[in-house]
């Protein structure tokens, strides 16, 4: 804990993340309205509706609160998949080397060269719309960075005497990988994971803004989508389009702070 | 001892400890005197505090270390200086070759330029002249193909070459006092010999070198200071120390050298945080200790030796 205190940037990131997680968990208690209840449309902020209402008369403040759930869930779930795929490939490539390494590197290079936005859009268009296809679309190219970075770290670790000794002792490969290699990657895994969450949240809000996000479930990007396409900017409804932008920025920043500064805490 | 030469460095009663969860006494009451032209080797095993001593003298320790005692360079108190004054001395007059040949160099700059840099920074030389001088310096250390390799980057060098290039870098600005920390760690026999030759090529250079390699210490130094468990246990002229070691630890250490048949006394050095071993730290391993050894002996002067053992009272 003393280390955390020394690292103010990371602490700030953790506080931001905890705040949003708490809001997501307690959404039912905090939000004043059910965001799907219809009411009087286009109300200005008032004591009843802190951020006014949207085109269908739904309370924007409540929408924002429930939006945390969808945005965080999508972000974290995609990041888990990205980190999992990335680290499995990195372990295989880094530990076995040789042909396995060359194959993984080639696949990573190809995946990196594919323009990710068109591919993501294409996937969304083809897949049945829903949370899981969104997660798939977000993760489809995002794992490359994680795989790359982890692979070189795994290679380094595998050259160290203690892994070599495990091998000569006859310890089984899965045990070496999961007990001896993986735990020594935990710092870098944490930071990559945090950066993946922020990346995924950005992609999700972008997709939702374009109207390709989750229908029915309201994420921040989704709110922004409706705000934009119902001309809130022209109408000067700041309370409608600004909150989702701010929240996305802060949440993404929270994960980035943890991601970038998490690595520095070692020194 | 009456010595007409100038005293360059005087270390008085220097102690270093690290406080916190684990208290560690790293250096305990060390006093040293380095005259102009001296080549002092500080020897001892890993954890004996020799590297910490060097860093403490140069004020390169982290602020968590508690340092007491005094260090003066040509009569000027190093501990009282501001960072700025200190920087003018470190690098210019005193230079330091760190441990581990890997990290001492910037991987993105050509070696020739790195060796030349101190001359540009501290002596105001023109870049071209300084780089020519750098090649000469590399030649003195027999790196081979000096003109070519001066234009190469550190990664193309072997560990031994990098080590010698680092020494060249250390002396390039004409520092009168050169500190080196474990310059032979991880090098093989031939490369240790080349490094020793590099040091010996610096005639008249004042040198303070920390090492755990006894043969290397013997080949480069004029005086040796032996450290054991944070204490300075013996100091003498090199040949005298190797021929006639007085402190039991020095004797045991010399007997354990492969050349002398790898004989040894059982037991291990006490842990850093072991405050239970009062008195002489070598007491528990020493073959000839008495009741008196429960008290820390002072440094006795005997026949050109300084030795911390009650036998010589």
């Amino acid at each position, binding site marked *: 804990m003393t280390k955390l205190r020394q690292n103010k940037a990371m602490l700030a990131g953790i506080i931001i993340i905890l705040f949003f997680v708490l809001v997501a968990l307690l959404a039912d208690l905090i939000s004043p309205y059910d965001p799907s209840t219809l009411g009087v449309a286009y109300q200005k902020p008032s004591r009843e509706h802190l951020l006014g209402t949207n085109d269908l008369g739904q309370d924007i403040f409540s929408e924002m609160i429930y939006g945390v759930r969808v945005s965080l869930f999508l972000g974290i779930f995609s990041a888990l998949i990205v980190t999992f795929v990335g680290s499995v490939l990195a372990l295989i490539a880094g530990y076995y080397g040789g042909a396995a390494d060359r194959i993984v590197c080639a696949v990573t290079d190809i995946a990196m060269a594919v323009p990710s936005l068109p591919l993501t859009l294409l996937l969304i268009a083809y897949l049945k719309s829903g949370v899981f296809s969104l997660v798939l679309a977000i993760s489809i190219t995002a794992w490359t960075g994680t795989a790359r970075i982890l692979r070189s770290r795994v290679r380094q670790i595998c050259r160290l*005497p203690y892994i*070599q000794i495990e091998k*000569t*002792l006859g310890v089984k490969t899965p045990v070496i990988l999961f007990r001896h290699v993986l735990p020594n990657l935990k710092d870098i895994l944490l930071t990559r994971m945090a950066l993946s969450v922020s990346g995924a949240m950005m992609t999700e809000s972008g997709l939702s803004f374009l109207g390709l996000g989750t229908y029915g479930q309201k994420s921040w990007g989704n709110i922004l989508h409706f705000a934009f396409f119902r001309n809130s900017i022209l109408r000067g409804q700041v309370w409608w389009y600004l909150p989702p932008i701010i929240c996305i920025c802060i949440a993404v920043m929270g994960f980035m702070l943890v991601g970038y500064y998490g690595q520095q805490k070692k020194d | 001892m009456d010595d007409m030469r100038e005293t360059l460095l005087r270390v008085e009663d220097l102690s270093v400890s690290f406080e916190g969860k684990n208290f560690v006494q790293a250096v305990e009451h060390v006093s040293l005197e380095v005259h102009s032209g001296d080549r002092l080797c500080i020897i001892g095993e*890993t*954890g004996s505090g020799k590297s910490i001593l060097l860093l403490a003298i140069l004020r390169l320790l982290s602020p968590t270390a508690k340092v007491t005692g005094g260090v003066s360079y040509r009569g000027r108190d190093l501990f009282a200086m501001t960072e700025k004054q200190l920087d003018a001395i470190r690098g210019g007059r005193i230079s330091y070759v760190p441990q581990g040949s890997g990290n001492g160099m910037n991987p993105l700059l050509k070696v020739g330029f790195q060796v030349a840099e101190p001359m540009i920074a501290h002596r105001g030389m023109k870049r071209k002249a300084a780089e020519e001088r750098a090649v000469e310096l590399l030649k003195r250390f027999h790196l081979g193909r000096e003109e070519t390799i001066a234009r190469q980057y550190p990664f193309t060098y072997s560990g031994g070459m990098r080590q010698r290039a680092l020494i060249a870098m250390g002396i390039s600005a004409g520092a009168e006092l050169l500190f080196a920390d474990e310059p032979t760690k991880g*090098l093989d026999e031939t490369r240790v010999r080349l490094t020793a030759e590099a040091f010996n090529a610096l005639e008249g250079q004042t040198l303070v070198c920390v090492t*755990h390699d006894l043969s290397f210490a013997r080949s480069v130094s004029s005086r040796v200071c032996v450290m054991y468990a944070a204490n300075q246990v013996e100091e003498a002229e090199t040949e005298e120390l190797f021929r006639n070691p007085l402190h039991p630890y020095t004797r045991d250490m010399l007997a*354990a050298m492969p050349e002398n048949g790898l004989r*040894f006394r059982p037991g291990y050095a006490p842990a850093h945080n072991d405050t239970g071993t009062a008195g002489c730290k070598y007491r528990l391993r020493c073959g000839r200790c008495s009741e008196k050894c429960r008290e820390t002996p002072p440094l006795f002067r005997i026949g050109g030796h300084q030795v911390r053992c009650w036998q010589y009272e």
Partner: protein
Amino acid sequence: MNEAILEACGLTKRFRSKEEGKRSFTAVKKASLSLFPGETLGLLGESGSGKSTLGQMLVGLIRPDEGTILFRGQPLAYPFKGAPREKIQILFQHPEVSFNPQLTLRQSLSEPFRIRGLPLSDGVLAECISRFGLYPEHLERRPGALSGGELQRAALARILVMEPEVILLDEPTSMLDVITQAQIVDFLRRYQEERGTSYLFITHSTSLARQVCHRIVRIRAGELQEEEKELVP
């Protein structure tokens, strides 16, 4: 003389070199040697001479490009399995990276017991390290809190649990002070007398090799030289 326990026949290893064009670099060229039970064979060479590469091939960490390794007369397939895997062990030069930094000494030391299915208890572990001057309190520490000498003794204790017949000692004392070096060498010597273990002792130090080895082979630029008889009394 009885049969060799470990034999190398024409071992060759090439590495692709990235710096100097596309030419590959031959680290070890057609190396053949035999290690007999109960002897210490010194492999003397400078850094970059290929001595560690040869050693790592012999313990099955690197797959040779050419040549075969025989253990008790049987050719070994890579990766090693069964008895050869248990009975050929290695001790490295750098004790500080010979243990997983995340695990305590207890966790690391338990591993070979588990692999061999031996009973494991506090007493067994304490006995395992007590011969090396380590105490039960050391068991709870992580490698970062132990000195190089302590770690190297623990590393030795750990591989001895496997009751190896061949131990490859890759400069096991070059990072240690002379007294710890003498202690480790002495322990290895006594262990050899007791068990008849064979050592392949890799070193760059002629004076050490002369003290420790029964036979000495020099390796230069990946090629084994004639056995040096005059070095050994």
